[in-house]
């Protein structure tokens, strides 16, 4: 237990202090890290819905877009402070998920397709509701993160700290639910829904609550991103990439675990942007696709499982070396 606390503390120090200390001079790299964590947050929300809710979603771009627009508009038109509007962005995305409740009756690919169609509806609404969203012209000059206690959170390092805090908070919430009795029931529900209902579990409500939470988290990431990049347009905010990249990241890292989607997002995005893109400026995604294919074939549990297999060996080697 003490070792675990020490490891968590070391990780927190490294994440909050060492990363900015090492890379804050390289704004391009910091912006890549912020983008990777944004994708990691959505990947975590997607994996939570898949692991606990048992639902495969191809529609998280809708939650991301709704969160983006809601937060930007609440700050710009209603004068809300950004801290509150981030939460409101998440709440609006969760509210948007209410409209998806009828799809909870569907399973497997039928649910996935229904949600994909649903995501397109939101993109069309954002494009056509010009009075509110300015349509395809988009919204510019979205207020940036404020200066708090003399520190400018609109800087790359400030944005990094915000997105890191959001992602870690999501991971803690996810871990808490997974350990709870609700988490046990949700995990059991995938293969034995009748059995869980027979002992009093309201399986529909349990799945719906995971859908709302996943939508809330994704909406908050969208809200963060809106104030980070200061510009929104429907094709960007509701882009299918906000669905596909997190799925790729989660599967690459190991979507059954909590850290897997985060590791996957950081590795996939940084590899793609910093290595593959430098080698192949056009078509670099082909390498990523091939890597993902190989990962699914040879290590379907993702990077996390490779680390888990390797680590005991490394520990044993290290222990025998010490002796």
């Amino acid at each position, binding site marked *: 237990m003490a070792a675990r606390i020490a490891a968590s503390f070391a990780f927190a120090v490294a994440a909050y202090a060492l990363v900015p200390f090492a890379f804050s001079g390289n704004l391009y790299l910091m912006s890549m890290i912020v983008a990777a964590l944004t994708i990691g947050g959505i990947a975590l929300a997607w994996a939570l819905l898949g692991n606990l809710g048992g639902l495969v979603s191809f529609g998280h771009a809708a939650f991301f877009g709704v969160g983006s627009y809601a937060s930007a508009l609440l700050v710009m038109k209603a004068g809300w402070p950004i801290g509150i509007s981030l939460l409101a962005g998440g709440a609006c995305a969760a509210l948007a998920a209410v409209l998806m409740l009828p799809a909870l009756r569907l399973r497997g690919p039928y649910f996935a397709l229904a949600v994909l169609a649903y995501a397109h509806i939101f993109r069309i609404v954002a494009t056509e509701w010009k009075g509110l969203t300015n349509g395809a012209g988009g919204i510019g000059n979205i207020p940036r993160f404020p200066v708090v206690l003399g520190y400018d959170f609109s800087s790359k390092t400030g944005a990094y700290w915000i997105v890191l805090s959001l992602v870690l908070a999501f991971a803690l919430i996810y871990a808490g639910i997974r350990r709870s009795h609700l988490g046990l029931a949700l995990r059991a529900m*995938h293969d034995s829904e009748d059995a*869980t209902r027979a002992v009093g579990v309201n399986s529909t409500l349990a799945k719906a609550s995971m859908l709302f939470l996943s939508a809330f988290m994704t909406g908050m990431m969208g809200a963060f991103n809106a104030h980070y990049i200061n510009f929104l347009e429907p094709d960007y905010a509701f882009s299918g990439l906000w669905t596909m990249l997190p799925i790729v990241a989660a599967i690459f890292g190991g979507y059954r675990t909590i850290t897997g989607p985060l590791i996957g997002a950081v590795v996939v995005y940084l590899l793609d942007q910093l290595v593959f893109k430098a080698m192949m400026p056009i078509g670099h995604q082909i390498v990523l696709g091939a890597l993902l294919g190989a990962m699914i074939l040879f290590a379907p549990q993702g990077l996390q499982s490779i680390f888990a297999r390797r680590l005991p060996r490394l520990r044993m080697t290290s222990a025998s070396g010490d002796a």
Partner: protein
Amino acid sequence: MLELSDIGVRFGGLRALDGVSLSVAAGEIVGLVGPNGAGKTTLFNVISGNLRPQRGSLHFDGADIARVPAYARARRGIGRTFQIPQPMHTLTVAENLAVAQRFGAGRVDAHAAEEILDLVHLTGLASRDAATSLSLAELKALEVAKALATRPRMLLLDEVLAGLEAVAKRRFTQMLAEIHARYKLAIVIIEHDIETISTLCPRAAVLNFGQLIADGTPAFVFSQPDVVASYTGTVPDA
């Protein structure tokens, strides 16, 4: 405690239940018998809320439960087991009971869980993976334990003795008698073995082709020509 009146269920052109009326009093043990396809499990599905009948009424403790979903019926005190054991996958035996206690009974009680595991002879297996490491007899015992963990007032046992060899069956029958004595539950048990029904149940009800054809003491019921005919496939004398 349980009042079923004129229950009707159709699957397409098949009448699975046809005008079934049955009442079960608190603390009573009723054996539900009948040939395969008679509608016994369908009746359990109707009582537990897994299936909504096309006609008829259901009351539990005086309340109309026709529109109450399955999970809420479990919380009201109707526990059930499944013919093919359905342990909660990915969970240990202890976690299966904890989930049943938390959602069915409203709170987790480790002492009560231990007592239940002891009663169904699963003590020592609490940390085992429920779906992959238990024998058939242990899975059947876990079915009963899960249902008990919801603190039911009525237990629906769907062929919990099926597939067990003679010694295990006797042990299981004894265990059910102990459960009844300790918790004073109403129990409805589907079972094909007439000897077990006669030993365990003061009352038996017989279903055939979706209709209730006899209801009374086992001795009375199993002497009825209609019941004998339903089992042997012969036509009773007029």
